[in-house]
């Protein structure tokens, strides 16, 4: 944690939606760091703010959403307040993005070659022939068979899994150091999900690129990520190395999430499932947002908001579970 700044540092990020009834705070003091070559898993129930964090990092937050506080730094340089044109040049070049649904991520009327070559030439000084050669290399890298032929095909001629590989190739086109992958396997067949996560992992290793892997599936995180950040109602409530968090979750919510991993469910048979649902943005309870669903909530939890500790394995909870495997 010393010396050179991390590749990506998000510092007390606040995102607000301006509505007719006043501002709604969707992200509340979100802080996270990713080093080069590292995979950070971001996990949490739907609506926790995972996609929003990724969207803010790639600078695609559209009104009425806006960054209301905090900083985002890439290699120590602030990027959250860059002018639009500077931010555009950075997108795709230094930060790549992968979205959830490969069926809708690609332009249906352009060949994948046209989409790849345009992206490559936007960021790299290559002529058309060299860009095409590079596009074929990228398709090979992501495991598309017969790339010299497939490059001239339209998206609808590919299966879902193959399309997600094309999306990954597009995200890599500008040689980014960081890839924000928002639920890259959620829309895919279960049998293909593992292939895509393996591919992401391999790319991260071979290229030394960092990945922010957003998912609501703790199992994917356990298999893929180096570190994990658990989000709940717009906040990070626990973060740390993936073995530490999965082996000894300290936040009651994280413990509940563990029950969703099939391989761990056997051992967790005694653990209760979390009842209730995450609060809507308009109805976030005072104190710890999790308190209405927490069996160990005290009077303090209903009044005072716990802050995330500054530790390698940190938790934001007044009554964290004591160390050791599952308390």
């Amino acid at each position, binding site marked *: 944690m010393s010396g050179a700044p991390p590749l990506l540092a998000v510092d007390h990020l606040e995102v607000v939606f301006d509505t007719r009834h006043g501002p709604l705070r969707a992200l509340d003091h979100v802080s996270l760091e990713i080093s080069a070559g590292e995979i950070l898993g971001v996990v949490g129930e739907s609506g926790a703010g995972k996609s929003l964090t990724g969207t803010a990092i790639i600078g*695609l937050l559209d009104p009425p959403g806006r960054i209301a506080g905090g900083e985002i730094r890439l290699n120590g340089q602030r990027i959250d307040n860059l002018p639009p044109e500077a931010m555009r040049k950075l997108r*795709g070049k230094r930060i790549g993005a992968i979205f959830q649904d490969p069926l809708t991520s690609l332009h249906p009327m352009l060949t994948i070659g046209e989409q790849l070559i345009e992206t490559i030439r936007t960021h790299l000084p290559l002529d058309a022939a060299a860009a095409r050669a590079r596009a074929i290399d990228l398709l090979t890298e992501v495991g598309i068979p017969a790339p010299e032929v497939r490059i001239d095909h339209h998206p609808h001629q590919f299966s879902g899994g193959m399309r997600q590989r094309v999306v990954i190739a597009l995200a890599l086109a500008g040689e980014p150091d960081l890839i924000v992958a928002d639920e890259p396997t959620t829309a895919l067949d279960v049998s293909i999900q593992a292939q895509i996560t393996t591919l992401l992992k391999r790319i991260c290793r071979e290229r030394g690129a960092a990945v922010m892997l957003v998912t609501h599936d703790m199992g994917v995180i356990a298999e893929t990520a180096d570190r994990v950040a658990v989000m709940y109602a717009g906040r990070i409530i626990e973060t740390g190395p993936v073995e530490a968090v999965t082996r000894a979750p300290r936040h009651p919510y994280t413990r509940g999430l563990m029950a969703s991993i099939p391989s761990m469910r056997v051992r967790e048979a005694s653990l209760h499932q979390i009842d209730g649902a995450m609060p809507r943005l308009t109805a976030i309870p005072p104190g710890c947002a999790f308190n209405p669903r927490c069996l160990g909530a005290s009077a303090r939890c209903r009044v005072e908001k716990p802050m995330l500790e500054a530790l390698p394995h940190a938790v934001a909870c007044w009554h964290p579970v004591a160390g050791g495997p599952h308390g």
Partner: protein
Amino acid sequence: MLAFLVKRLLNAVGVMLAVAFLAFMIFRFVGDPVELMLNEQASQAQRDELRMRLGLDRSFFVQFGTFVFNAMRGDFGISYRNQQEVFTLIVERFPATFELVLVATFLSLAIGIPLGVYSAIRRESLGAQAIQFISVLGVSLPSFALGILFILLFSVTLQWLPAFGRGETVALGWWTTGLLTPSGRLALILPGLTLSLFQITLVMRLVRAEMLETMRTEFIRFARARGLPDGSIHFRHALRNCLMPVITVTGLQIGNLIAFALVTETVFQWPGMGLLFVQAVTFVDIPVMAAYLIIVSFIFVTLNTLVDLTYALVDPRLRQDALAGGAHGR
């Protein structure tokens, strides 16, 4: 697909028969053709003789059948007014109307598409608001009023453009064109603009709506996430996705433009089919009126059917369904 084709064709035939029936009724019952064709001193024998020669003594259904059969061969009889074959009269006038419609279509795309894109991507800007406002004006102002305003401004006051006629034309076989002479091109501007004004606003609002929808799609979001420049995102990626409905609507509107050209042609004394029809009405020249009705309807129905069929053929959803087994995107 075949069932769709057959259904669509039957539909078209049905509409044409209905129109033919209407035209026939006008022909048969608006004024007595015998009275119109003979002078007042004609004897009863002469009348009966003509009535028989015209087949008016036969049963209603036989008469209608003959009418339809003749119409299919392009035989609409003789104009009462100038004793020429009606079909020849109309065919002579067709190029003038068609060129006017072509110019209006071109203008509507050339002006409507950029305005639509602009008002979609700069939605909040003053310019976009102004365009919206003017487009409402454009829709509510009748085209003859606009044509007269144009004539007052550009022909009478500024004297830049001719107020009536086609200018000099060049004959290419049976076709006559004003596009090859300077005066012919100048003469096309005002009527073309007048006829296209409604269409411009139509294209513009369509492009705007389609663009707004496309800009919200995931593939545009992903294109932005890859850092592609705005120009490419708007025109190469988003607009491409909007052109399909624009082409469809433009194709369908050609029939409408031919019909509405009637007003524009009257204002600018443009020697097209519409003007012919208006003159025919003032002289109660029923064969010309009936023929115009049938020919314009035929163009209309043919275009509609063709557009429908092409659309079914190239609809990406149909294609993608067949190939990938999933319905998505547009």
